């Protein structure tokens, strides 16, 4: 357990002066995660907001080695970097201890990058993959992704006279990554910085692949005040819209249980992308969303109980 004071003294890898929007969740996630690396890092990044806003030639915000290749292949590119490291280290040409970390948005992770992510995780590269999930393709102007929540207004699921925003539920990527049987998977939120820090520490410490899924609000896409980003993530956690949990070698532990689970409407009502859900013609949708949040939460608690029972046997 680290204190905020201690964490504030850890040297930054992502320098200030980059061009991410005010209130963007992504750089908060990056800075919080990298504080836990405890060794030099080599960073790979999928095409997206984080990449285009931090590496505008001839400037870079990255104090560490950094590579970007394309949208769908951050995991594959980093696989190559990590393979080079293993090879050169075995040959005695490199002696440094280096950690490998990839960052991608939900577009580069849930969707176009899912194949290369799955491949890299299955092969067992020693790397941490961090998804900053803002729930849509924000870089190209708020188009829906498979991480977009049901009912959200995006530019490819616009609210119209016959459609109430995005139809259908989000893909549960964290569970998909758990199904890969990798040593460490966790969901994190900037609001719970200590929980995040401890999980990032574990992710970097395991030998082999680790996956962290971080909620990372986009004030432009979510349509909330840019000063309220961390508050958004806190609401997401307290409503169990974004539960905090980890799977260590497949054993599930819910790392934060809200003392009083807030109704999901508390999260929805703060954001412009859900405003239409409160109109009379969309009656019943919020109840459906609440039911789905409840179902997923109960399922997660059941998974945790199962893990505890297995440990007790």
């Amino acid at each position, binding site marked *: 357990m680290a204190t905020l004071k201690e964490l504030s003294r850890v040297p930054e890898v992502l320098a200030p002066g980059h061009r991410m929007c005010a209130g963007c969740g992504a750089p908060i996630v990056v800075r919080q995660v990298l504080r836990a690396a405890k060794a*030099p890092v*080599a960073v*790979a990044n999928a095409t997206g907001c984080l*990449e*285009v806003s931090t*590496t*505008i*030639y*001839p400037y*870079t915000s*990255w*104090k*560490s*080695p*950094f*590579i*970007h*290749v*394309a949208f*769908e*292949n951050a*995991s*594959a*590119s*980093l*696989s*190559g*970097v990590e*393979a*080079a*490291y*293993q*090879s*050169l280290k*075995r*040959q005695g040409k*490199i002696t*440094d201890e*280096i950690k490998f970390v990839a960052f991608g948005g939900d577009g580069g992770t849930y969707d176009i990058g899912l*194949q*290369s992510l*799955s*491949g*890299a995780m*299955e*092969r067992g590269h020693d790397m941490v993959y961090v998804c900053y999930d803002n729930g849509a393709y924000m870089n190209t102007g708020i188009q829906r992704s498979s991480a977009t929540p049901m009912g959200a207004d995006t530019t490819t699921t616009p609210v119209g006279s016959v459609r109430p925003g995005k139809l259908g539920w989000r893909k549960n990527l964290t569970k998909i990554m758990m199904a890969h049987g990798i040593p460490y998977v966790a969901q994190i939120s900037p609001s719970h910085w200590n929980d995040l820090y401890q999980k990032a520490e574990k992710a970097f410490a395991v030998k082999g692949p680790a996956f962290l899924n971080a909620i990372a609000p986009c004030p432009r896409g979510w349509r909330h005040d840019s000063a309220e980003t961390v508050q958004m993530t806190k609401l997401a956690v307290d409503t169990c819209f974004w539960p905090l949990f980890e799977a260590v070698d497949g054993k599930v532990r819910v790392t934060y249980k809200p003392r009083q689970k807030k109704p999901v409407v508390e999260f929805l009502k703060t954001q412009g992308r859900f405003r239409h859900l409160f109109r009379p013609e969309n009656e019943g949708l919020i109840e459906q969303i609440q039911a789905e949040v409840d179902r997923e939460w109960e399922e997660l608690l059941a998974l945790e109980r199962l893990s505890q029972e297995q440990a007790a046997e």
Partner: protein
Amino acid sequence: MAAEQKRVAMTGNEAVAHCMRQIDPDVVAAYPITPQTDIVQYFSTFVSNGQVKTEFVTVESEHSAMSATLGASMAGARAMTATSSQGLALMWEVLHITSSYRAPVVMPVVNRALSGPINIHCDHSDTMGSLTTGWIQLYSESAQEAYDNLIQAVRIAEHPDVLLPVMVCQDGFITSHGIENLNLLPDETVKQFVGEYKPEHYLLDLENPITVGPLALQDYYTEVKYQQAKAMENAKQVILDVAAEYEKISGRKYGFFEAYKLDDAERAIVVLSSTAGTAKAVVDSLRARGEKVGLLKPRVLRPFPAKELVDALSSVQAVAIMDRADTFSTAGGQLFVEIRSALYESDKRPLMKNYILGLGGRDTTTREITKVYSDLAAALEKGRVEELITHLDVRE
């Protein structure tokens, strides 16, 4: 002094795999695809038996193969992959990125027709489609040439004046699966020839951290592309220098192309890779009948040796350019368009005709090639070409 060489019987794929063993790259990331598969399988055996120091990444697709190879190269490793056809097509996005990042990646390509319809046999539609990706391209007639080109490719790619990726092409099945006799250099000779890879800038150099792959817009993108074009120009001399050095250890001579009985030829065929072997047999038999025919087999298509091709073809009166892939432009195959354009600078322009042939593995025999030479004779007699583009051996 040429090294003592070992005479072996091998397929083209086997020769290339053994060549990769001798080069012993730091990283190989590859995905199997017919007809390249043997290369990956043989190489996997070398990895499993500890015959190489390579970290072998068994990626889940060719897109990831190219991405991982590029990542490894930028990290500071000598990195290779290999592919064919659809695999090359899937890599297409990353091919451009690899050349623009100036990664000296070397990749054997076993030429195979692109779908559709799906077809596993040879034509050149795969690599013709990647002529604009910024890669150097070397073509091989035989397993021996594929082996020799691959060794030279490492030196060409990594030369500080070049720093560009290189494809080494051989014909699918015809060369890749045909067994032929060839000479292998001793492992130690290859090791010394390729030397140790020591990049000036690399990702894992913690003392000098670099950002690879930044965003460059209107203010810098043009300069990046200009530098690539300059590097491609520089490659011309480097290709010749490396060939001269390679001749010393192997006794085998390479240039931009092979001119076969071309000096006094009135009629000539320009053809790539294995079909050149068939065409040489036709040249020999026509020469035996006193006909002045010759052949030019390009080895290097990128950079395109325009000036040298003009010099070689200017004294010929009629030339047939053979394309083993169509462009569907209706104005001819890629080789035809480029060579014809180069000859615009010549004072003595030969009559020129284009043939599209050998698609999807269709055999081109001495019979078809003999007909091409007689078509040229007819054109010379009339003083003009009747049909500019002919699809050879096709049911209409």
